[in-house]
């Protein structure tokens, strides 16, 4: 039966129907739901791995064993997994292996907008790029066929608008893929220089064969147009914008496989139109290839390298009518994301801000600690960089920075890439203070379990890494746990650990306020008699507290009664609404 499906759910459905057996991923917007959806199928083994490199190696292991496997990640996750990626390209696979990578043009929830298509070209692997849920479903299935036919992993490249848009899909039954027997093959799977030298020619031959496949595959199709004054080569969501504004007017070469590209098909298409245009988000990838063929083409001189496209943008650049609306002539204040009411990170960041600490940050909800009014975080780069870079920062500045600088990193991010940085601090001995913000979940991506939570992807009990024991085992003598709702305790811990003349770890521990099992206290209310309007409670930037008619006001539908604001009120004006007795 036809149904509306999120692009990520459709990809998951396609992988499932193709018989995927083993799934290992690390969450990352906009890729997360592919793996979450796969975890709902009992026939599939699914897991959250500590990071994308581990996930890809797990998927490779399952492929080696002869089963169809999958790993999914966001664009920056592929950087983490790049090491196995480039060499899996040499070994090839046994069971089919599909790698989903989801780009985030416009950076809805990312630290950069790199274009993952370059990985397909540089690692010499095929990449399929769906333009809606129906194609995400069909291409996921097709990817396994290609993987096994050409002996290589296959990319399924998503982007935010394909991953997080719903369109119509007609699902079918799962077909179990017959397991391929594992056969010992040292020359194929042991990438010593001698063997790798002999594998590299296979890689080049494979790409030549895949380029031939691209010429005839239905993945790349020409859609006829009535006006040959212009012809458009496009893929992914850009294709949808082109169809939205041009309909069937201009011929379109719609690419479902963006690497390798079909040279003959492109040449023939170019010859059939007066002017050749490439419409693609982010980098000039298809356009660069077309230029290398010596063809005249217009692309990035017309279309931006930055951000997402939309139908109006494409219409304007192609010279077709653009829709206009009438905005309100009014100063509308922005509404940036903020830490939630009751967020356990707030009390800790207030403490760091109050103590004028230099805070090196990391990737997660707590990156919002950089926003006003806390303005606490001064650096965010990539997963784990807080822990590694505080060591470099302190080695550069010595005692001058050691007693006022901290690194903050979430529990999941610490498991992902923080442990190796911590090992470096322990080994090369900088007097650094690392704060693990343990909210007992992977928050930003929507509550995924991780190795510190004690539960697996299905919510069943699993192994649980003891953060205190881990840090002690690495050689940290000073490891302490603090409740971020207790401002005095936070202040004491931060001051003492910064003052200490040895490296230390503070674990700021309290579960995310949005977790279903977390019991909230009654909301607070401002007693108008006591409130003097000093705005002391507003220093923490809680979305539940506003200021009206000279007094603070608590939105009782948002407040979860964490009580952090009450600790800042010197007049006792913030009072619980819980009935006494």
């Amino acid at each position, binding site marked *: 039966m*036809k149904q*509306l499906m*999120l692009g990520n759910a459709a990809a998951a459905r396609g992988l499932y129907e193709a018989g995927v057996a083993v799934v290992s991923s690390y969450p990352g*917007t*906009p890729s*997360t*739901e592919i793996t979450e959806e796969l975890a709902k199928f009992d026939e599939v083994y699914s897991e959250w791995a500590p990071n994308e490199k581990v996930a890809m190696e797990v998927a490779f292991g399952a492929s080696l064993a002869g089963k169809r496997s999958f790993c999914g990640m966001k664009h920056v996750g592929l950087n983490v997994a790049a090491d196995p990626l480039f060499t899996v390209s040499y070994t090839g696979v046994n069971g089919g292996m599909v790698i989903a990578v989801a780009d985030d043009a416009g950076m*809805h*929830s990312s630290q950069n907008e790199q274009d993952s298509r370059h990985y397909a070209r540089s690692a010499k692997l095929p990449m399929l790029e769906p333009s*809606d849920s129906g194609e995400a479903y069909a291409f996921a299935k097709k990817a396994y066929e290609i993987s096994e036919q050409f002996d290589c992993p296959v990319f399924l490249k998503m982007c935010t*608008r*394909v991953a*997080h*848009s*719903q*369109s*119509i899909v007609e699902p079918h039954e799962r077909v179990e893929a017959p397991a391929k027997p594992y056969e010992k093959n040292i020359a194929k799977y042991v990438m010593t220089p001698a063997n790798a030298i002999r594998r590299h020619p296979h890689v080049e031959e494979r790409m030549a064969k895949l380029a031939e496949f691209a010429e005839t595959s239905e993945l790349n199709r020409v859609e006829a147009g009535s006006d040959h004054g212009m012809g458009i080569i496009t893929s992914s*969501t850009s294709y*949808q*914008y082109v*169809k*939205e504004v041009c309909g069937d007017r201009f011929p379109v070469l719609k690419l479902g496989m963006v690497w390798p590209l079909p040279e003959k098909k492109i040449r023939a298409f170019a010859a059939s139109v007066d002017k050749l245009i490439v419409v693609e988000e982010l980098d000039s990838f298809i356009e660069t290839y077309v230029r290398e063929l010596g063809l005249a083409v217009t692309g990035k001189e017309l279309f931006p390298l930055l951000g997402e496209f*939309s*139908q*109006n943008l494409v219409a304007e650049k192609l010279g077709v009518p653009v*829709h*206009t*609306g*009438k*905005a*309100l*002539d*009014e*100063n*509308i*204040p*922005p*509404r*940036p*994301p*903020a*830490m*939630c009411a009751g967020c356990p990170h707030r009390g800790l960041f207030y403490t760091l801000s109050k103590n004028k600490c230099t805070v090196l940050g990391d990737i997660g*909800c707590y990156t*919002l600690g950089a*926003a*006003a*009014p806390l303005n606490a975080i001064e650096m965010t780069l990539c997963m784990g960089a807080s822990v590694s870079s505080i060591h470099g920062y302190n080695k550069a500045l010595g005692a001058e920075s050691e007693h006022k600088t901290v690194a903050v990193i979430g529990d999941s991010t610490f498991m992902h890439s923080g442990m190796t940085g911590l090992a470096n601090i322990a080994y090369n001995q900088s007097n650094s203070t690392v704060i693990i913000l343990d909210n007992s979940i992977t928050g*930003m991506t*929507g509550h995924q379990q991780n190795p510190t939570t004690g539960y697996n992807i299905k919510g069943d009990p699993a192994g649980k890494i003891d953060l205190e024991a881990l840090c002690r085992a690495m050689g940290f003598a000073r490891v302490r746990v603090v409740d971020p709702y207790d401002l005095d305790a936070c202040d004491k811990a931060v001051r003492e650990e910064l003052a200490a003349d040895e490296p230390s770890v503070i674990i700021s521990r309290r579960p995310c306020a949005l977790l279903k099992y977390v019991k909230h206290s009654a909301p607070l209310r401002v007693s108008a008699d006591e409130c003097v309007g000093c*705005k002391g409670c*507003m220093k923490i*930037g*809680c*979305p539940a*507290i*506003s*200021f009206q008619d000279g007094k603070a006001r608590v*939105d009782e*539908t948002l407040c979860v009664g964490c009580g952090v604001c009450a600790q800042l009120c010197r007049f006792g004006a913030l009072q619980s609404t819980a009935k006494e007795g």
Partner: protein
Amino acid sequence: METKNIMIVGVGGQGSLLASKLLGHLLLGQGYDVKVSEVHGMSQRGGSVVTYVRYGDKVASPVIDRGEADYIVSFELLEAARWMGYLKPGGQIVTSTQRIDPMPVITGAAQYPENLVEKMRAAGAKVDALDCLALAEQAGSSKATNIVLMGRLSHYFDLPEEAWQKSLEAMVPAKFLDLNRKAFELGKNA
């Protein structure tokens, strides 16, 4: 049929995903091609969020652009004002009068504009404004604001009542169905 566009705007965490799921189910059931585009991740944390619902004979783009929305359904007044430029000339805004201060207003860096409904009307927009939060609480839960809005939106659609009710049944957990039916009615008849 030419593609129709509904934008659902609000503040992250207000329940716009359920509203778009309901509309998706409803419109698919009417035999339309439907696309729904959502926002996940960081902007959901109390930020300005927008969901696009498009339906017609054949829908290409998953998003709605400036000057294209037939309806803007808003959970919060400032958000209706923010996205007004996306309304098609002659389009309809259906908004809750709820006010949620954004962080720049909380910190004192910006002011929350006054009289937004009047200003939007003066600028030529058709605005249907109602206190959805109060109606949701009357129905039994402040969380039913989204369904109050859907009830109000149903007013503007030439669709049989049972189609809406069927989608409500399909999308809302059974134990909250009565509450949500009431919220829908209150919105519809407000």
